[in-house]
C-alpha cells in the first residue's frame, strides 16, 4: 500500500519521531543555532567594524551561516538513526523508500526553517539591517532556502551515513551542490532588502523553487538505493 496517503502518513510519523527525539535529547537544532550565531559574530570580526560593509554583506553572511549550520544539523539528524541500528530497522519497515526520505527531509526542513528564521533575526539585529519592511519576500526566501538545504542534506546524509570519513564527505559532497541555492538565496535576500530595485526578486525565487523541486524529486527517487546494504 504505497499510495500517497500512506506515504504522507509514514513521512509525518518519521518527522514527528525526529522532532520528538530532537526536543527530548538531541538538541541538534539548538546546538547548530548557536553555531550559526558564532559564525555570524566571526563574520563581523572578519569583515571589520565598517557597518555599511557589514550591512551590504549581510545576505551573504546569513546564508553562509545557515548553510554551514545546516550541514551540522542534517548530520546530527541522521546520527539519530545510527542509534543501535535504527536506520536498518527503518529500512526494514514495509514503507515506500520515498516516504522515508520525505520524513527525514521534513524533519530537516523544520530544523532548517527554525534556524533560518532565527539567523535572519540575528542578522537584522547584528548588522542593523531592516528586515521588517520586506518580511514577506524574506520569509519566502528562507522557506525555499531551508527546504533546499534539507532536501540536499538529507540525500547526502543518506549517502554518507555508513561511510568512514563521514564528517568530511558530507560537506564535500553537499556544499558544491548547494551552490545554486546559495547564489539564488543571497540574491533574493539582497533584492528583498533593497526593495527589489531591478525587479529580479521573482526570478531568483523561481530559481529556488526549481532547485528545491529537482532536488526533492532526485532525493526521493534514489533514497531507496542509499538504504541498500
Amino acid at each position, binding site marked *: 500500500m*504505497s499510495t500517497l496517503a500512506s506515504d504522507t502518513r509514514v513521512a509525518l510519523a518519521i518527522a514527528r*519521531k525526529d522532532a520528538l527525539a530532537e526536543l527530548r535529547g538531541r538538541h541538534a537544532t539548538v546546538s547548530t543555532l548557536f553555531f550559526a550565531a558564532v559564525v555570524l559574530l566571526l563574520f563581523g570580526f572578519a569583515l571589520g567594524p565598517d557597518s555599511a560593509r557589514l550591512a551590504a554583506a549581510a545576505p551573504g553572511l546569513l546564508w553562509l551561516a545557515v548553510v554551514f549550520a545546516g550541514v551540522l544539523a542534517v548530520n546530527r539528524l541522521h546520527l539519530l538513526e545510527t542509534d*543501535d541500528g535504527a536506520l536498518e530497522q527503518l529500512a526494514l519497515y514495509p514503507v515506500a523508500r520515498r516516504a522515508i526520505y520525505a520524513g527525514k527531509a521534513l524533519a530537516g526542513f523544520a530544523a532548517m526553517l527554525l534556524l533560518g528564521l532565527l539567523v535572519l533575526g540575528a542578522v537584522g539585529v547584528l548588522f542593523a539591517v531592516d528586515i521588517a519592511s520586506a518580511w514577506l519576500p524574506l520569509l519566502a526566501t528562507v522557506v525555499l532556502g531551508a527546504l533546499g538545504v534539507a532536501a540536499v542534506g538529507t540525500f547526502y546524509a543518506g549517502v554518507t551515513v555508513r561511510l568512514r570519513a563521514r564528517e568530511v564527505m558530507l560537506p564535500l559532497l553537499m556544499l558544491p551542490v548547494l551552490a545554486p541555492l546559495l547564489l539564488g538565496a543571497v540574491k533574493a535576500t539582497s533584492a528583498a532588502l533593497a526593495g527589489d530595485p531591478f525587479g529580479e526578486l521573482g526570478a531568483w525565487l523561481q530559481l529556488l523553487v526549481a532547485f528545491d523541486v529537482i532536488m526533492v524529486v532526485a532525493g526521493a527517487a534514489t533514497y531507496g538505493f542509499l538504504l541498500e546494504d
Partner: protein
Amino acid sequence: MMLWPTISAPQTSMPQTTIYVSPRSLGAHDSRPPAVVTTDLARLFAGNAALAGVSLRVDAGGVIALLGANGAGKTTLLRVLATAIRPSYGRAQVDGFDIDRDADIVRGRVAYLSHATGLYDDLTARENLRFAAAMLGTPDAAQRVERALFDVGLSDRAADPVRGFSAGMRKRLALGRILLGNASLVLLDEPYAALDADGLSLVDQLLVAWREVGVTVLVASHAADRLEPFLDGRVLLARGLVAGVEGQGVTSFPPSLPVARGSLTGVSP
C-alpha cells in the same frame, strides 16, 4: 473474529497470559508456498564469504532452529532473508516472493529480531512502539501498543525513555514491536540472549503462539536444548554452507559448483 489461541504455557513464574498474536490467513496447510527457498545464496564481506552457497527449502508453518558455530553464517542468512542486506550471489524467496525484486512485499511479511534493537534511546518505550505501529500500519494502534507492552512485561516502564533500559528490556521491546506486525515469517537472532527467567519463558510462549497460528519461525540460537520442545526442524550451518538439516518441512540441496554470475562479465571459473 477468530478466537486467539490460548496457550498453556509451560509452568513458569509468569502469570498465565494469552499472548495476542495477530491471525494469519491460513489456507490449507500444504497449499501455502514454502516460507523460505534459497538457491546458492552467497554473501561476502570485504572479500570473505560469510555465506558461501546455501540452498535450502523450509515449508510454511513450524519453528526451525538455525544452528552452527560463530561465523557459520547464521546471522548473515537471517539478514539476507529479512532484506536487511542484499545477497552477493544466488537468489532467495520468502513465501514465494523474491527478496530482491519483491523486496517491498517481503518486508511486509517478515519480522526480524536482530542483535541491534533499532530503538530510539530518546523516545519512551510506548513512543518507540507507537512509531513502529505507524510504520507497520498496525490497525487500532493504541490498543495494540498497550497490549504488546503488556505481553512483553513492560507496561510499568512504558513511559520511561529506552535510554535507561537494560539489554534484556530492549530485547523485550523489540519483541513487542514484532507483535505489532503481521509477519508470516519471523526471524529471531539469539532471542534468548540477555533475557531473565521471565524473558526466556516469554520467548517460549511466543514460539508456541506463532506455531499455533501457522507462522514460520527461524531461530538462530546456541540454546538448542531450550528450543528442543518447540522445534519442527533444524538447519546446521558451517563455514557459510548447510552442513545438515533435520525435520519434516526442511530440505537442503548441495550448492552448485560453477558460479554463474550475470553481473560484470559472467565470469565463471
